[in-house]
């Protein structure tokens, strides 16, 4: 590659991003399917039985990746929202909007799988523990963002209101992440910490990371697919949309 600078604003135009996203969707979809297939195989046939929790611990292989994605997607949305507010780029706001349902989905799954893990291990589907409560608040933030965006007819106003909600809600992410340190929680501490401490066997860790990467590729594929619908909906009167083969046909 030459030292020529890449003009990122080139891709911030919906007309150039739409076909690019279309090419990226199948690539990330294939990566997601392969990684999740390998991850599921490792989860059930390679990872050993836990000495304390027996086979029940295998829930970790969906629970932790889903919980990571629930927080990560929120941060990515907040990043796009900030970019959208600063540079007034329409596509950034569309990206934030496209990620929201997937983020809400993973938050729901983190709570759901957590309940089904908590019941046999703690004896309760739900406790008002700091980790669980802050994750529930994250779910409400996603729902609030989606509802707020849907409730305002003017797209630019909806984008701005949503972006501000997202940025205010970012405060919840460190609260979720550090809740197991700051408070005495029933929820166990971090499985993998930022300092690189790992409190589990290598096979289990590798399986969890592969599943997490699979969920990550899945999220990119679904969000890019969804952003394509959003671009078409918002740009339906633009000239380039009329020239698309899938519209003319």
């Amino acid at each position, binding site marked *: 590659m030459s030292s020529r600078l890449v003009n990122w604003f080139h891709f911030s135009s919906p007309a150039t991003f739409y076909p690019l996203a279309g090419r990226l969707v199948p690539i990330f979809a294939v990566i997601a399917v392969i990684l999740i297939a390998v991850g599921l195989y490792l989860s059930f046939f390679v990872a050993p039985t836990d000495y304390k929790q027996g086979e*029940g611990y*295998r829930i970790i292989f969906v629970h932790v990746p889903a919980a990571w994605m629930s927080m990560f997607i929120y941060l990515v949305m907040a990043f796009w929202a900030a970019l959208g507010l600063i540079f007034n780029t329409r596509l950034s706001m569309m990206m934030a909007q496209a990620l929201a349902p997937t983020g809400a989905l993973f938050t729901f799954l983190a709570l759901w*799988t957590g309940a089904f893990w908590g019941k046999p291990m703690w004896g309760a589907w739900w406790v008002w523990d700091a980790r669980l409560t802050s994750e529930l608040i994250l779910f409400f933030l996603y729902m609030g963002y989606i509802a707020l965006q849907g409730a305002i007819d003017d797209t630019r106003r909806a984008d701005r209101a949503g972006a501000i909600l997202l940025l205010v809600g970012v405060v919840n992410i460190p609260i979720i992440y550090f809740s197991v340190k700051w408070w005495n929680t029933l929820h166990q501490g971090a499985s993998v910490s930022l300092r690189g401490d790992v409190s589990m066997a290598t096979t289990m860790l590798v399986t969890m990371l592969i599943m997490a990467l699979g969920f990550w590729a899945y999220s990119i594929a*679904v969000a890019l697919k969804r952003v394509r619908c959003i671009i078409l909906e918002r740009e339906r009167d633009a000239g380039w949309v009329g020239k698309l083969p899938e519209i003319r046909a």
Partner: protein
Amino acid sequence: MNWSEFWHMGGYALYVWASFGVTALLMIAEPLLVGGRCRNVRRRIARLRRLQQEENP
């Protein structure tokens, strides 16, 4: 390990399969729903464009 033992999950069958099952269900349903939405959007825009062309050719 045979299959009935596998599905039994050492007594944790309900919890393990409810977790993996619902995760699989939602992660299969979401892409299908998004695909359907995109198809609808494309169809609607194509129809609108056709109508516009008929009105002012």
